[in-house]
């Protein structure tokens, strides 16, 4: 499983290690380049200085090192080493420090001196510079004749290039290019660079280690609220969802998560509460008629009665039984609908005809209550619905209107076709519902005011069932109540299949 803390720490450490490595390498290379440049410049200066001590005398090229008596060149082991060659690779001079060793000849390309790391005869690392120059001519002071003898072996203080009488016609000797290699012990520089490298590496490692450690601590500490949040969520009790996840950690990044969770909990709590109260309400709705049934029968049996009295008892019992049956059937339909087990067989249905059909069983009740029924049925336009389900909707709405209308009040049944839908409007007078209450009429088992006083058919299932079915049929249902006590339900159902619109006629 991916760990936020681990990937955060790992990424940060990797990044900082890369930066440190690059920075360290840059510092190392810059310092190294500076040191070498410094070394080279010193070498070059010395080489130029030394080259000035090489002269072209009338008898050949000679050095004046004996005058200089330069320290460092005289003892074996250096730290300075010097060697000269003539053009033809004839060795002109070797410093005493070289002993029997030789320096590698470095022929510079053009005027720029050539530099190279070399291994000195002492076995140590040295930096060497090679220059090629034309010694200056000094014939005047050449008063110290030396036997023409090539000094190809030991070079003494008074060594000299053998005079081979190569004088030109002006009495000048021909110019000889001399290649000089000057090497200097650079082991201390090398050592310093090694030390620098080690120091840089150590600092880098230390920085990475400290960064990693502190990151680990910081990341762990920062992620602790997540653990606590998880613990709180884990500690939630399904029986009490009203407990909110606290915000004592006050971590801004977790705020939206906590808010969403609390929202979800609130919604769940509401749903659970509704579910619990629904069960309680169903129990009440079933218990109450059962209690009535039992009481009627028991009181009826409690003493010797006439046949007529028993008939009353039986009629009362039958009435309650029918009410209970209707309620149980509505409950079952609602449960099936909510479980998604009801499918609509869509076909053209004639709403006006269906309404008249559904009205038949209610006519007697409406007349008994002295209701004035107003019919405003528009032209018969078939709607796309399931005739059984739409019939159930219409029966429930009509029944609701007849039951809730005030005594000798009015019921208006209206159909309006147009704009792709047919509206079925059923209104009744005598409503005492406030606009706030109207929103509840589609809730299961919700009953307002007067409806509360009866149980059975009018237990608040009809309209929620109607809404569920209309939604399944792809229509809509709304309710409204005005100040004049008129309560109206409007069901809108499409008069064609949705895909027909695309396919055309």
């Amino acid at each position, binding site marked *: 499983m991916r760990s936020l803390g681990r990937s955060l720490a790992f990424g940060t450490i990797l990044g900082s290690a890369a930066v440190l490595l690059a920075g360290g390498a840059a510092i190392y290379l810059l310092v190294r380049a500076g040191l070498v440049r410094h070394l080279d410049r010193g070498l070059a200066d010395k080489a130029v200085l030394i080259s000035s001590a090489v002269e072209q005398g009338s008898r050949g090229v000679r050095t004046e090192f004996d005058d200089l008596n330069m320290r460092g060149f005289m003892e074996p082991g250096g730290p300075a080493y010097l060697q000269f060659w003539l053009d033809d690779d004839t060795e002109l001079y070797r410093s005493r420090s070289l002993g029997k060793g030789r320096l590698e000849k470095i022929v510079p390309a053009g005027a720029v001196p050539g530099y190279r790391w070399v291994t000195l005869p002492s076995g140590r690392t040295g930096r060497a510079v090679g220059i090629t120059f034309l010694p200056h001519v000094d014939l005047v002071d050449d008063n110290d004749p030396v036997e023409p003898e090539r000094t190809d072996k030991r070079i003494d203080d008074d060594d000299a290039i053998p005079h081979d009488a190569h004088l030109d016609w002006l009495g000048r000797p021909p110019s000889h290019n001399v290649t000089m290699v000057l090497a200097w012990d650079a082991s201390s520089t090398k050592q310093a660079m090694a030390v620098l490298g080690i120091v840089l590496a150590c600092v880098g490692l230390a920085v990475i280690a400290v960064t990693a450690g502190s990151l680990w601590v910081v990341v762990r500490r920062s992620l602790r609220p997540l653990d606590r949040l998880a613990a709180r969520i884990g500690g939630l009790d399904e029986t009490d969802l009203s407990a909110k996840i606290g915000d004592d950690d006050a971590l801004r990044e977790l705020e939206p998560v906590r808010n969403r969770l609390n929202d979800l909990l609130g919604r769940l709590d509401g749903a659970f509460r509704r579910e619990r109260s629904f069960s*309680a309400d169903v*129990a*009440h709705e079933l*218990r*109450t*008629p*059962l*209690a*009535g*049934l*039992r*009481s*009627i029968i*028991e*009181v*009826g049996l*409690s*003493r010797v009665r006439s046949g007529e009295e028993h008939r009353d008892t039986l009629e*009362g019992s039958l*009435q*309650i039984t029918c009410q209970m049956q209707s309620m149980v059937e509505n409950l079952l339909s609602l449960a099936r609908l909510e479980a998604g087990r009801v499918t609509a067989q869509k076909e053209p249905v004639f709403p006006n005809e269906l309404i008249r059909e559904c009205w038949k069983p209610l006519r007697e009740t409406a007349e008994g209550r002295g209701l004035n029924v107003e019919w405003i049925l528009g032209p018969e336009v078939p709607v796309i619905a399931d005739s059984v389900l739409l019939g159930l909707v219409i029966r429930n709405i009509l029944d609701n209107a007849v039951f809730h209308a005030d005594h000798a009040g009015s019921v208006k049944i209206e159909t309006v076709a147009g704009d792709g839908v047919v509206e079925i409007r059923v209104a009744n007078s005598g409503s005492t519902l406030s606009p706030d209450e109207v929103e509840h009429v589609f809730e299961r088992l919700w009953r307002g*005011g*007067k409806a*509360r*006083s*009866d*149980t059975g058919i009018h237990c608040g299932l009809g309209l929620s069932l109607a809404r569920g079915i209309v939604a399944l049929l792809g229509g809509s249902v709304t309710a409204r109540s005005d100040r004049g006590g008129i309560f109206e339900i409007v069901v809108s159902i499409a008069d064609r299949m949705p895909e027909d619109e695309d396919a055309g006629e």
Partner: protein
Amino acid sequence: MKILVVEDYAPLRKSIEKGLREAGFAVDATGDGNEGLWYAESGGYDVIVLDLMLPGADGLTTLRKLRNQDNPAYILILTARDTLEDRVEGLNLGADDYLVKPVAFEELLARVRALIRRKYEVSSPAVRVGDLEIDTTAHMVRRAGKIVELTAREYALLEFLALRAGQVVTRTEIWDHIYDFEAEPNSNVIDVFVGYLRRKLQKRGLPPLIHTKRGSGYVLREPE
């Protein structure tokens, strides 16, 4: 004894009303909480059978109001709510008994009678005053060992006087406890019934039990 039934489900309300009436109680019944409260406040009920889920004022509100007013009626809650919390809440708010629907009518009747005994501080269903014995369960009355046949109204009157034996009972109290709203108010109907009762109880030269307190009412006590 007078009972008020506040129950919104008409078939149940009517059958309870009928059953209680047949058991000799004066009964008023309503299906609305506010109306029930109004009935109860008008007084005289010995027991109120109260449903909790009611249109108008709900049962618990009614109960709380009645208890705040120190209404002397004993209250029996009859409801479909059966949880422990509901029972505890109902009893804690001052109800005297709690029954869950559906309930056997016999049990309801027995509990109403038990509440009446508690209200009049009588422990036994058999009430004795001198040589008068009243079995309040079977509605049987004996005087000196002999059964006295009484009508329901006469029995109710005698029972009320017997439960308050030794105390002066006013005509208003009698009216309040024996007659429900369906009874026609009549100024001397009580005197007439007391007359009937006296005649039936004083047969064979037995000494009078019901004495008239001029200007205030009647008292049932042992003959001196």
